[in-house]
């Protein structure tokens, strides 16, 4: 008879250990993180309903508005804003819609009962979202360089890519909060209803100074606006507001969504 592995070391102690990953060795932890990332990436990659819109829409819209229909001189401005628009997609949808779906399928409950750390799951989703975001950014760069005659210093290309990728964080948390709060049926509709207006009203589709004054004021409330402005400051095409104000706004949004998401998470656990 095989003796089962009774690892009761944590149980006989008087207090319960609130452990995240104290008992997996470092190589095991690394492997876990990589596996979560790989699993989520494979799930995404094998969903045509995710891959196609994520990659195609930003490229398509950029070519349309930023290259062929523009009166010139806007291709670099719109490259930046469409990069922001493009990376928001995987963040909001992978964390928004997919978490809601996985929750409704009972997959999250299974992970809750197994010793699966939530942080590893979120890490995996973050990595896969970032990889998609990177692919989108690179595709847009290629379009901009080949068709839009956009020229930036190498430091600007790199800085833009880096900044835009880091800037997905508040949107990942936003998506996470939505995914934990919405039902699987409602999630796609709601996330779409948020994603597109957020991008448009934040000045990511058409330059913000084309929109009427009151809309420009309203944009100050939107994370997408601050994201776009911060990214635009890399090429010096942002409005007159100082860059640190946009950074501060994004930090505030990140904290806000983190608090909302962790509250929703605790409510989901319900114990």
């Amino acid at each position, binding site marked *: *008879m095989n003796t089962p592995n009774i690892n009761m070391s944590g149980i006989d102690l008087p207090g319960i*250990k609130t452990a995240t990953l104290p008992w997996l060795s470092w190589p095991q932890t690394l492997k876990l993180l990589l596996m979560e990332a790989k*699993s989520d990436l494979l799930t995404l990659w*094998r969903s045509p309903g995710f891959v196609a819109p994520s990659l195609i829409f930003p490229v398509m819209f950029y070519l349309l508005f930023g290259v062929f229909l523009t009166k010139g001189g806007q291709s670099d401005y719109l490259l930046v804003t469409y990069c922001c628009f493009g990376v928001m997609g995987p963040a909001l949808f992978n964390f928004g819609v997919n978490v809601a779906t996985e929750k409704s399928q009972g997959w999250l409950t*299974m992970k809750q009962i*197994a010793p699966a750390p939530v942080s590893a799951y979120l890490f995996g989703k973050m990595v896969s979202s970032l990889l998609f975001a990177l692919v989108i950014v690179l595709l847009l760069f290629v379009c901009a360089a080949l068709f839009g005659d956009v020229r930036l210093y190498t430091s600007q290309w790199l800085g833009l890519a880096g900044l835009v990728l880091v800037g997905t964080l508040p949107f990942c948390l936003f998506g996470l909060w939505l995914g934990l709060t919405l039902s699987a049926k409602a999630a796609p509709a709601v996330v779409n209803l948020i994603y597109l207006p957020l991008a448009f009203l934040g000045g990511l589709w058409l330059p913000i100074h084309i929109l009427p004054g009151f809309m420009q004021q309203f944009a100050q409330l939107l994370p997408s606006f601050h994201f776009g402005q911060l990214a635009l400051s890399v090429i010096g095409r942002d409005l007159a507001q100082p860059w640190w104000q946009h950074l501060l706004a994004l930090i505030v949004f990140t904290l806000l969504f983190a608090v909302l998401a962790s509250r929703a998470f605790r409510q989901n656990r319900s114990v």
Partner: protein
Amino acid sequence: MTTPYINIRNLTKKFAQHPVLNQLDLTINAGEIVAILGENGAGKTTLLNLMLGLMPADSGEIQLFGQPASALQQSMALRANIGVMLQQASLPGNLTVLEHLELFSCYYPNPRPLPELIQSCGLSDIVQQRFASLSGGQKQAVLFALAIIGKPVLLFLDEPTVGLDVAARQAFWQQIRQAKADGISVVLTTHYLEEADQLASRILVLKNGHFIADGSPAQLKAFGLTRQICCCTRLSQTLISSWPEVQRVAQLEGQPAAQLDTPKNAASGQQLQIHSRQPEQTLRRLLALDEQLADLTVSGVSLEQAFLQLTQAQEHSA
């Protein structure tokens, strides 16, 4: 005396003021294979969710390995010692069986080696298939493999064979027997009497929010072998109920037996429903005593009726 694996005291859980579980007690020790038997809606899944700390109780105490069930959320060690198959769970359909197994095995510091697990769970043919393309039985097999991948000491199975055909169900029972042989304790919920009978060392019957029976399969076998005899006979119900192997006699139209035991109905006969532990004996008596016995059918007793018997037996013995 070692700490019981599961210890529940005075558990009450209400949904919209209606008590689904009412002052329920339960103790399960190491080495038991326990089946919780109940009709649909009896509260089996609710009980399981409470034991796993997935919802809070309204009152009462639930302990798992001597710790409160709510501690499950915080303790990796606790979670590693149990394996669970939930009824409503499904896995992301895009990943293959192997990818699911690989991911899940990463959660444990000392998981079962994958080749051996695949072999023993019968997954060798479907290892590269995507989860969404599997049949119902194959999906359950994968979920079972995930439940035991971490070498748990205690397995929770929630209605594991619902919707499976006979062959799949049999294959699954074989898996559980294998787990039993490996020294894993099992708590499973089901509404299949035969399943409880096949697998469990102890059966608990859940009705009206608490356990109305708690015993070995042998006790239930008695009720499982009860047969129902329907016939039209001139014999009086009083006579038939006096036979020792007869558990219950009822008039088919639902009128109480006493009213019909009158001479003027004796000649025309009455439709009766007889529950007998030894149906062959009862049939011999009927055929011997009533040459005009008619409309004779013999069938198995439903779970509902077996439970009724159980209840009445307990009440009578109390």
